Structure formats: structure tokens, C-alpha cells
């Protein structure tokens, strides 16, 4: 079982093709697979569809793939922080499918769990529900949403062991576990690969069965909104 690769480019070798569908972890710039995104930019793969909660900022995260026009379509819940995104969308160069955040997460989770569709009350009566099957359960109306099946999952975790068991850190977990499960192949970047057996089996957040390739690297981990409070004088 060889899962560890030397670089992001090596880990993605043979997996990328034009027009593919990629599910990415991360929330804002927190817990995004920044090294793999850079490697996809370097590979020049085109016409990509990305399922990702956000689209990064102009020069970080998925934003770097928007600059190079490698993205054809985004499936996201919130894209407010990216000017280039807005420009490409308003000029019709970029397709956008808004999913409510919980629906996006559940679509990934369901796809990874072999569930092709599920009913939710999120979005009933809004434009999200247009064209979708409606069904009543116990007197309440729900809409049918589909599970997501991606060609590739790219995620960021804190630590992996050599078999791909993953541990995330704090709020950087976010979309990473559901995104990891919904791809045919899942490539993970971590801050540290530790020897198999050194992680507590009771504390694994995502078992290695979902993980196919792993790289370790240096992460910039950019902060989007630095908010602080003043220390009170003792």
C-alpha cells in the first residue's frame, strides 16, 4: 500500500483531464488544499467543474485557477470574496450553481456514502427548488437533491499516517471529510505524515479507506479576516 507521493504534481499524475469534476475541501481560505490547487494550475487542466463551498480570493485558493481561466463551472454556497469570480460570472464566462451550504455538504456526504439522492426542506419555496421533485413527508414538503460523485477529491488535513488515516485540526476540518469521500480518487495534502501506529485509532477523523494519495508540504495558511481584541492592562 503505497500512498505517499513526493510532491503535489506527482500525486496528481495521471488523474487530471480537461472537463473533469473536482470536489474540494475548505471553508473560505481555512483548510483548503492550497498545494494541490497550485499543482492543478501548473498542470494547466482546463474546463474544470469545482464543487467547493467558496471560490477563494483573487490570488489564493481556487482564485488562482480563475485567473488562468481553467474553471468552467463552480458549485458553491458563497462566492462574495472574489472580484475576478464576480467579473467572469457577470460577463457569462463562468457558470455558477448555488447550493445552500448544508445541501452542498450533504450532496458530498451522500455521494461518498453511495446515496444518489435525498430529500431536504432547505430551499423549499425558493429559486433553489425550481425544477426539483417535491414530496411531502409527515405533512411537510421537501425537495429532492442529488448525491455528488466527483472524478477527484482534493483535501487538506493536519496529519496523516502512512495508510492515510487522517486527523484534521480545529475549524479546518469543515468540508474536507465530506469532499474526501465523494471522489473516485482522493488526494490529500497534510502538514505532517506520521508513522503508522502513532495515531490513536479512536481519534481518527477520516479512515484511510477514503484516501488514495498523500503528500506532505509547507502551507501558507492565509488568514482571510484577521480579527483580534485588545489585551486588558493587568
Amino acid at each position: 500500500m503505497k500512498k505517499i507521493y513526493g510532491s503535489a504534481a506527482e500525486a496528481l499524475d495521471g488523474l487530471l483531464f480537461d472537463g473533469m469534476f473536482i470536489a474540494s475541501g475548505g471553508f473560505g481560505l481555512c483548510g483548503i488544499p492550497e498545494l494541490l490547487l497550485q499543482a492543478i494550475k501548473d498542470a494547466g487542466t482546463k474546463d474544470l467543474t469545482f464543487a467547493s463551498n467558496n471560490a477563494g480570493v483573487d490570488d489564493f485558493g481556487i482564485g488562482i485557477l480563475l485567473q488562468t481561466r481553467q474553471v468552467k463551472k463552480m458549485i458553491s454556497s458563497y462566492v462574495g470574496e472574489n472580484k475576478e469570480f464576480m467579473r467572469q460570472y457577470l460577463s457569462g464566462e463562468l457558470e455558477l450553481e448555488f447550493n445552500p451550504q448544508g445541501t452542498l455538504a450533504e450532496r458530498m456526504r451522500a455521494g461518498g456514502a453511495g446515496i444518489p439522492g435525498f430529500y431536504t426542506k432547505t430551499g423549499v419555496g425558493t429559486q433553489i427548488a425550481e425544477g426539483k421533485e417535491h414530496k411531502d413527508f409527515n405533512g411537510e414538503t421537501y425537495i429532492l437533491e442529488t448525491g455528488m460523485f466527483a472524478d477527484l477529491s482534493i483535501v487538506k488535513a493536519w496529519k496523516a499516517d502512512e495508510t492515510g488515516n487522517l486527523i484534521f485540526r480545529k475549524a479546518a476540518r469543515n468540508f474536507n471529510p465530506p469532499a474526501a469521500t465523494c471522489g473516485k480518487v482522493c488526494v490529500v495534502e497534510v502538514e505532517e505524515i506520521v508513522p503508522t501506529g502513532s495515531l490513536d485509532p479512536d481519534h481518527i477523523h477520516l479512515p484511510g479507506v477514503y484516501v488514495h494519495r498523500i503528500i506532505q508540504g509547507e502551507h501558507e495558511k492565509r488568514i482571510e479576516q484577521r480579527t483580534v481584541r485588545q489585551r486588558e492592562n493587568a
Partner: protein
Amino acid sequence: MPWDRNQMAERAAQELEDGTYVNLGIGIPTLVSNYVGDKDITLQSENGMLGMGPFPFEGDEDPDLINAGKQTITELPRTAYFDSATSFGMIRGGKIAAAILGAMEVAENGDLANWMIPGKLVKGMGGAMDLVAGVQRVIVVMDHTNKAGETKVLKECTLPLTGTGVVDRIITNLGVLDVVEGGLKIVELADGVTEEELRAATEATIV
């Protein structure tokens, strides 16, 4: 004098029941956490955290620890982290007692619009549609009128909806209104605001 932002947040904090789990939206709702007093309230952040603490001291910011507004925050002894699917499972599943959210428009039947201005503002709904569909009680906190002086408390929303019939209570700078059968009911007036003033600033039916 109508209430200012902090007074609206203080009034909204009275809505929170001791011992509950609550989600606060961005803007005035975020200020509500300053006024919970002695009540034991656990704040949920929909990016995957229960037990959200205050902003960090300068130098203690952690890029792995942000709230749903992407701001750096801190954890508390009670904090738990989880993934986004689990986070919206507890929202959709009705485990969160209340959400306090901002709004662009609210209608007398409880319809809410707070995510999109067609052709102008295209940012996305984030978790708002899941929150209003799933939490037990939805409280809107907003100014009664927009910058042009037009009412935001309408018979029918004109903007794309976030949810239909989802709002329970509206707290504005002019007072507190409940969504009831047939329209809105005045619960409370802001200090120095008359019922006539509130009615004049409202398009929705007041019953």
C-alpha cells in the same frame, strides 16, 4: 429615539433561553453575544464548531480557527469541532434552538429574503437557507427601513427568498414584531417610538 445597533442586539439577546445552542448571523446578530449575560448559551458556527469563543488577542490568531464570517476566533473549554455535513445535520435536524439573522426584506407571512439582489449582489446564500429551514426559532434583527428610507417590513418580499414562512420574530430599530395569523403583531416599541411611527414605517398588515 429608535434603538441603535447595540440596543437591537441587547434586545435580541433577551430572546435566547438559558442552556440552549444558538447560531448568530453576520452583522448586528454577531453583537448579540455581547449581551447574553449570565445565560449559559453555546454558540454554533456553521463551518463546524460548537462553543465559539471571542476574538483572539493580537498575536494569538490561528488560521485553522475561524467562524462562518471567516473571522479569527477562539475556542472555549466546551468547544467541539466537526465537519460541514455534521454541522448542517444538527441545523437541519432541529437541534439548534434559535438563529438570529439579518435580512434585506421580511414579509407578513414570515417569508425572508437576505441573500441576493438580482443583477447587483451575487454572493450566495451560504448556510442561511439551511438555518431558516431547520432551526427551531428564527429571529430577524434589522433596520426597519433601508438606506433610501423604504420599509423592509412588507406584505410580500420582492427579492429572491431565503425561506417561506420561516420568521418567528422581527426586531428592528423601531420595535419587536411577531409573525402571527393574518400579519404581524406589535410586541414592543423601542423607547420613544410611537405605534403610529412604527405603523407608518411598515407596509405589512399589523393585526
